[in-house]
């Protein structure tokens, strides 16, 4: 829903990496996996 979308947009960047919560290797690997070649 737009509100959820808005919530996520506030919490996460366009690659799905949280702005606030610390990351770790596994999560970062996951984020990298989502970044496809074109980007």
């Amino acid at each position: 829903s737009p509100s959820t979308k808005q919530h996520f947009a506030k919490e996460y960047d366009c690659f799905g990496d949280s702005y606030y919560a610390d990351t770790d290797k596994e999560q970062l690997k996951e984020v990298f996996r989502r970044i496809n070649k074109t980007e």
Partner: protein
Amino acid sequence: MDTSVRRIEVSSEPGKIYFLRVTWEEDLGSGFSVDLCDGQSAWTGKVSEEEVSKEAQEMEMKRQIYVDELCQALTAGGKQTNSYSFNLSKDPADNRSLHFSYEKVLKDVFFKLGSVELHTVSKPIEVIKELINHGLDRSTELRARNEHLLGENERLGQERDYVTEELKKYVQAKEVLEQDLYTRFVLVLNEKKAKIRSLQEKLKQAQEEVESELQHRG
């Protein structure tokens, strides 16, 4: 000049071993000499280039194919000795010469490949010594080649092992690189996230202050 020595049996004397030595220049097609020895006596003869061409014609074979057949039949290079048969017959007119013929055997059908008149060698000791020397020299050559190949073998094995070790190191280095980069990335990224959290906190406070000011004014 090339020489080949091989053991043969002749159909007229089954079980008796003869040593057949063939010597030629470029290839058998340019003519060759034949020496036969039973370990005590020796006989020698020649086949000229013309005779080779004539035999090939009579057999209606291309020259090269015929020469290959001769190679298989007469030289040590040839493997299938049972595909060829040899005959030796005394010449009734001259007991110092023998008629030596060689045939290709295909499903029990004998095709004459060629023949040569052989004359008794007056001093067979020379032929015998050459035959023994041929084996010794060929073995020495082959042993040297063997040693060279063994050296090559060792070198190639070492190179392969070295490159394999390098590859293992690289595989490891790639994994280490990946882990190392992720560790660094996580550190840098979490620094930024801490910065964002603190800015978010400050902004929240600032906005609450504005809020309270506005209420205050209101």
